């Protein structure tokens, strides 16, 4: 019995079946040669008539008690007939080669037959008369050999190659306290620099003067070859200049702030003399440094965010100035106020540097870069570079103005600052991972 039902028939029988007079035995070969096409057609018809039709093979998928899927193929094939009380024995040719563990499926009504693997025979002594169904169950073992590649975690591939920059650690923290104001700064070299062993382009500096807190953050632009120098020059220069200009203007500024009513423009006028003039002097210092080193000033390109703050009787005064894509913000729970205008370029990493075109051309435009506010004692002021802002706020200015986003940020910072070693904790926090965001990160917190 062959489950595939291959058939054979002699040419003479074939012709006879089709009602054609068959030639003599000796002439068959010649006859076939001469009537090739006709015989082909007869053979096709015969096969179609005799072979099991496709629709007689039914496939059914069911699930066993243990959850294995079983595909049952019903062949419309009939085994040799048997007889009650007489030994039955018939060989079955199985359709696949790599078959394992063939079993005759148990059947309550008809259980006298079994399958003998060695001889591939169905054997037994039938006890009852009638049409029976026999199901042979077997397992086919198949193997699929597949290839795959596992990518490394990009986080583990980043190298941390120390830069050879003197006087500038790759990561840096500073804490200072004056009266009731604490300033905490942390700056971390971006992974893209660490990977190449190049120095950190961000810089920060804080200082105190006559009860004023001065905080500066500068982000040297990646496209400028010596921007790490530029950011440092600007920080050092502007702090120096602000002290000088505060000396000249602070009394007038404070009396304006403390007056019962004041004009914004008057205060901005004073801030102009303190902050903008100092920023301009810092820019002039940049050009000098560039000249001395036979560089273009654009080789030192850097942004600038600067804040001055003073504790007044029951509140704090804060004034700020910014060129570039950093952020200065005042935050207390449920309220965030941006104290800056953000210069965004058309492309990521592109912004307006302090030495950018037309920065120091229009007094009105410069005044628009000045912000001030009197804030409650529990309000904190935060300065950050785009290395933090872009990944943290998803490059989304709406999120940057959202108090809930800021709450999350502040909660994380508070946790880090409350630890035993806040410097280490903050540097670790600055290392948060976001794909494609590997810039230097600097934060200064004034509270």
């Amino acid at each position, binding site marked *: 019995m062959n489950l595939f039902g291959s058939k054979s028939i002699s040419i003479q029988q074939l012709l006879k079946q089709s009602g054609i007079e068959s030639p003599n035995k000796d002439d068959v070969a010649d006859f076939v040669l001469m009537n090739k096409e006709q015989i082909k057609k007869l053979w096709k018809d015969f096969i179609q008539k005799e072979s099991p039709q496709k629709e007689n093979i039914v496939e059914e998928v069911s699930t066993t008690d243990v959850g294995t899927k079983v595909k049952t193929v019903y062949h419309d094939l009939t085994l040799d007939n048997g007889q009650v009380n007489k030994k039955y024995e018939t060989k079955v040719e199985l359709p696949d080669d790599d078959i394992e563990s063939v079993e005759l499926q148990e059947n309550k009504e008809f259980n006298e037959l079994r399958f003998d693997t060695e001889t591939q025979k169905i054997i037994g002594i039938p006890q009852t008369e009638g049409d029976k169904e026999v199901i042979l169950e077997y397992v086919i073992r198949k193997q699929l050999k597949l290839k795959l590649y596992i990518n*490394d975690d990009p986080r583990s591939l980043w190298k941390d190659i120390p830069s050879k920059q003197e006087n500038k650690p790759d990561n840096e923290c500073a804490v200072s306290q004056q009266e009731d104001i604490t300033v905490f700064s942390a700056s971390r070299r971006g992974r893209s620099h660490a990977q190449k062993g190049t120095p950190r382009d961000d810089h920060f500096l804080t200082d105190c003067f006559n009860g004023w807190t001065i905080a500066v953050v500068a982000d040297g632009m*990646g496209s400028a070859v010596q921007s790490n120098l530029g950011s440092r020059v600007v920080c050092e220069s502007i702090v120096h200049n602000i002290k000088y200009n505060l000396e000249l203007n602070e009394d007038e500024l404070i009396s304006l702030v403390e007056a019962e009513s004041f004009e914004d423009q008057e205060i901005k006028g004073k801030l102009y003399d303190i902050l903008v003039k100092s920023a301009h002097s810092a820019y002039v210092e940049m050009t000098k440094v560039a000249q001395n080193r036979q560089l273009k000033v654009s080789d030192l390109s850097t942004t600038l965010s600067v804040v001055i703050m003073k504790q007044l009787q029951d509140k704090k005064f804060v004034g700020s100035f910014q060129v570039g894509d950093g952020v200065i913000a005042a935050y207390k729970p449920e309220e965030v106020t941006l104290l800056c205008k953000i210069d965004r370029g058309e492309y990521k*990493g592109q912004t307006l540097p302090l030495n950018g075109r037309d920065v120091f051309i229009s007094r009105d435009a410069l005044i628009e870069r000045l912000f001030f506010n009197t804030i409650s004692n529990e309000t904190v002021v935060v300065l950050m570079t785009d290395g933090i802002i872009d990944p943290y706020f998803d490059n989304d200015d709406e999120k940057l103005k959202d108090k809930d986003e800021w709450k999350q940020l502040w909660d994380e910072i508070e946790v880090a600052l409350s630890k035993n070693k806040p410097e280490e904790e903050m540097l670790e926090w600055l290392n948060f991972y976001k*794909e494609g965001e590997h810039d230097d990160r600097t934060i200064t917190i004034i509270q």
Partner: protein
Amino acid sequence: MTRKLPVYIMVDTSGSMSGEPIQSVNNGVKMLIRSLRKNPQALETVKLGFIEYNSTAKETETLKDLPQVKEPVFTASGGTCLGAGLDLLATCLKRDVVTGDTKNEVKGDWKPLVFHLTDGYPNDNWEDALARFDRKSVNFILSCGVPGSDRSVLEKVSGGTDKVLELESATEAELSEYFEWVTASITMATNSVATAENDEVITPGSLPPFKPTVTANEELF
């Protein structure tokens, strides 16, 4: 969403490339993928696609993020239908490169880099295909000629004399050096992504030199 840098490798797989050259290309490409996979910046930034052309053109591997890229296997036979290759490249660029939307301030992928390798003179209407090709859809096509190629064709395809490279032979050593150079160029391009000031992260002029020339020993002269 992070902007990606699409890179296409377009290879002439005509019959003349069979044997050592195509075997070397396969090895070179394998080396390129394995080496880029070790670079975290590339792993996050690069999208890689492979196109080949002989009597027709086909996408050996569709443009995919580097972690998903499978090593292609090129086989060489047939003609040199560069035109078909260019047309297919244009189709792939249009379909697979994410374009920005200036209205909604959404920035698409960086302009794609195309590294093209050939050893023969094209035998289809490649000039028509080149005329159809929108050169602004890519940062650059850099053509590399193996002996047998025609420099003037390469210059036309690349759109400049400075975007053509000629190998001395189609040997394993030479092609392996070429793919090392392509790897270094892609690496350099991914490093420039952070400081890019427009859609093109790198210019052909700032790519690393191919086979840096040995400087003369001054003391000898």
